[in-house]
C-alpha cells in the first residue's frame, strides 16, 4: 500500500482568505492519505511516483484521481504517490512540476493543463532520466516518454460522420456549440465536425457559437439558436457541457421530434437526458479509467519497456464511441449525472459514494 503525499496549492495571493480557499480546495482533492509506507516484505522495488493532476475541479478529474490512487495501491509497486493538485491552473501546475522534480520521483505522470507551460520542467525531468507520462493531453515538446490519451480527432470525426451521414442522411442543417476558443479539445472537435460537413454538400452549419464549456452558457446559446427561427435538423456540441446545455434547451423547447445531437464526451447525465427525452445521441468516451492506463504506462517505463510516443486508448474495449442504440444499455440509474461511464470497473461502490456519484 503506497503512502499518499499531497501538495498544497501554490497560491500567489497573499490574503489569508485566499489561502484558506486554496487550502480548502487542496484538502478536497487530497483523497485518502492512509498509506502504510509500502509492502517491504515482498522485496520488490517500490517506486515514488509524482502524479500532477488537473485537480478535482470537475467530476471527471475527481474520478481520475480516485482511480490513480486505487490502481497505485492495488499494484503493490508504489511506495509513495506524490499527489499535486493544480486546481485547473496551468501556472500553478508549473510551480508544482518544479516541486515534483525536487522530490526526485522515479516517474512523473502529468495531466498537462497547458501545452507550452510545462515544456521546460518536462524536458528537465527527461534529462534527469525521470520518465514522464503525459496523461490525457500533450505538451509542445517531443521530449517525453509517452502520451496516453484518447484520439480526440478520430473519435470526433467518427461521431461527426454519424451525425452528417447516418442521422441526417447527408442532407440538413446543423447548429454548433463549440467549447472555448483556442482550447485544443474544442478546436479539434470542431475541426472534425467541419471536415465531415465539408464532405457532405447537402449539409450546412447554420448557427455556431462558443458555449465556454459551460452548461449554462451552452444552454443560453442553444436557446438563442432555437429562437432564431432557422431550421435546425441536428446539433453538435463540443464536449459534455456543451451537449448537456443543448439537450437542456431542447427539453425546455419541447420540439415535436427531438433532433440528433453529437459531440458529447460521455457521462451518465448525457445518457439520462438522451434516454428520458428520446434524443438521438452520438458521443465519444473520455474515460476516467485513463488514469489506470497512464499508471500502467509509467510502470512499463520503469520496467524498462520501450514505449511508443502515443498510446491511443480509443480502440480499447469499452472506450469506443456510443450511439443511440447503446444509450439504454450504458445508462446506470444508480449513479448521478456526473458519473463517467466505466469508472465502476475500478472504483468500488463505497468509493463512488464518497465522490457523490451514487444517488
Amino acid at each position, binding site marked *: 500500500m503506497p503512502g499518499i503525499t499531497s501538495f498544497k496549492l501554490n497560491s500567489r495571493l497573499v490574503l489569508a*482568505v485566499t489561502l484558506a*480557499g486554496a487550502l*480548502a480546495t487542496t484538502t478536497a482533492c487530497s483523497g485518502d492519505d492512509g498509506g502504510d509506507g509500502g509492502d517491504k516484505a515482498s522485496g520488490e522495488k517500490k517506486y515514488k511516483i509524482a502524479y500532477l493532476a488537473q485537480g478535482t*475541479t470537475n467530476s471527471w478529474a475527481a474520478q481520475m484521481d480516485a482511480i490513480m490512487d486505487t490502481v497505485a495501491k492495488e499494484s503493490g509497486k508504489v511506495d509513495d504517490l506524490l499527489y499535486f493538485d493544480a486546481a485547473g491552473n496551468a501556472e500553478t501546475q508549473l510551480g508544482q512540476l518544479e516541486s515534483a522534480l525536487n522530490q526526485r520521483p522515479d516517474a512523473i505522470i502529468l495531466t498537462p493543463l497547458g501545452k507550452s507551460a510545462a515544456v521546460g520542467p518536462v524536458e528537465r525531468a527527461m534529462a534527469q532520466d525521470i520518465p514522464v507520462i503525459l496523461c490525457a493531453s500533450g505538451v509542445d515538446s517531443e521530449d517525453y516518454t509517452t502520451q496516453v490519451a484518447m484520439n480526440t480527432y478520430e473519435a470526433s470525426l467518427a461521431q461527426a460522420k454519424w451525425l452528417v451521414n447516418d442521422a441526417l442522411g447527408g442532407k440538413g442543417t446543423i447548429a454548433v456549440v463549440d467549447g472555448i476558443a483556442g482550447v485544443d479539445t474544442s478546436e479539434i472537435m470542431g475541426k472534425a465536425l467541419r471536415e465531415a460537413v465539408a464532405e457532405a454538400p447537402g449539409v450546412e452549419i447554420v448557427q455556431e457559437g462558443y458555449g465556454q464549456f459551460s452548461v449554462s*452558457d451552452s444552454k443560453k446559446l442553444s436557446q438563442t439558436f432555437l429562437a*432564431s427561427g*432557422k431550421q435546425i435538423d441536428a446539433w453538435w456540441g463540443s464536449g459534455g*457541457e456543451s451537449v*448537456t446545455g443543448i439537450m437542456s434547451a431542447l427539453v425546455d423547447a419541447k420540439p415535436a421530434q427531438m433532433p440528433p445531437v453529437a459531440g458529447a464526451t460521455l457521462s451518465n447525465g448525457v445518457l439520462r437526458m438522451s434516454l428520458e427525452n428520446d434524443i438521438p445521441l452520438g458521443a465519444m468516451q473520455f474515460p476516467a479509467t485513463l488514469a489506470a492506463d497512464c499508471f500502467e504506462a509509467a510502470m512499463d517505463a520503469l520496467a524498462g519497456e520501450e514505449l511508443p510516443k502515443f498510446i491511443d486508448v480509443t480502440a480499447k474495449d469499452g472506450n469506443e464511441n456510443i450511439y443511440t442504440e447503446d444509450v439504454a444499455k450504458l445508462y446506470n440509474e444508480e449513479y448521478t449525472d456526473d458519473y463517467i461511464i466505466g469508472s465502476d470497473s475500478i472504483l468500488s461502490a463505497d468509493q463512488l459514494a464518497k465522490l*457523490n456519484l451514487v444517488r
Partner: protein
Amino acid sequence: MTTTAGLAHADTGAARAVALRVLGVLGVAAVAAVATALWLPQFYTATNLNSLLLQASILGIVTLGQALVLLVAGLDLSVAAVMSASLVVVASLSGEGLGGIAVAVLAAVLLGLGVGTLNGVLVAYRGVAPFIVTLGTAALVSGLQLVYTRGAPPGAIPERMRGLTQDGIGVVPWSAVLCVALAVALHVGLRRGTYGRRVYATGTSLGVARRAGVRTDLLLVGIYALCGGLAALAGVVLSSYVGYVDGAAGKGYDLDSVAAAVIGGVAFTGGKGGVLGAALGALALTVVLNVLVLSGIGSHVQLIARGAIIVVALAFIAHRAIKK
C-alpha cells in the same frame, strides 16, 4: 441637519444626471430596437423575447448587487462564485417538496449574505482593497464548494423550481418580474430617505461622508452583504434556468455584471449612477449578445464583435464622464 441638507442638495443634481443617463440608455435602446426590427425580424418572436428576458433577468439580479457595490466605490468579484455555490446549495438541500425548496433557497441566500458580509468587513474595517478581498473570497467560496462536492455536486434541481424561469406572464418569465421588482425596490430605497444619500455620499467621498456623520463602515458592510444576497438569489434563478447541477454555472457573471452596471451608467469610481440604469445595462448587454448570435455570424467574429461593442460603449461612457 445642515449635513443632511447638504447631502440632499448634492443628490438632486446627481439624481438629474442619473435620470438623463437612463433616458440616454433608453434612447439608444429605442434606436437599436427599430434597427433590429428591420435587420433581424426574428428578434421579436415570442420565443426569442422570452429567452432574452430570462437571460437578462439572471444577469440583471446580480448586476443590481454589483451596482450597489460600485456606487460605494467598491467592486465584487466573488459574485460568480456565490452564484455557483448557491446552485450547489439548492441542489443539495432541496427535495421536491416546497418546504425543502424554501429551506434550500433560504440557505443559499444566507450563504450569499454571509460572503457579502465577510467582504464588507474586510473592506470597511480592515481597509483591504475590494478587488483583493473579493478575489480572495471567490477563491474561498470555490474552494469550500470543492471540499463539499469533491468535484461532483450532489442532488438535483427540483422540477418545481423550474417554474420561476419556465412560466410567467406572456413572454415575461417570473424571473424577469422578480428582477424588475428588486430593481424598483432598490431604486426607491436609494432615492427616498436618507439611506440612499448616504450611499451616494460614501461612494463620492468616503472621508467627507464619514466627517458628515455617515457610519460608512456599517454602510459598506450592509452594501456588500446585500450584493452577496442578490448574487445568491441570482444563483437560485440560474438553478431554475439551467435545471442541471453545474458547479461552475456562475462562471463569467462577475465581469459581465460589472460591464452591465457600467454600461448602465454606474461610475466605476463610485457615487454616480443608479440601479435602474444598471438593470437596463444588463438588458442591453444581453441584447447585444442575442443579436450577435441571431445574426448568424461566425463564432470567432462574435467574440470580436462582443468585445468591441463593450469596449466602445465603455469608452463612450468614460468620455462623457470626463467631459462633465
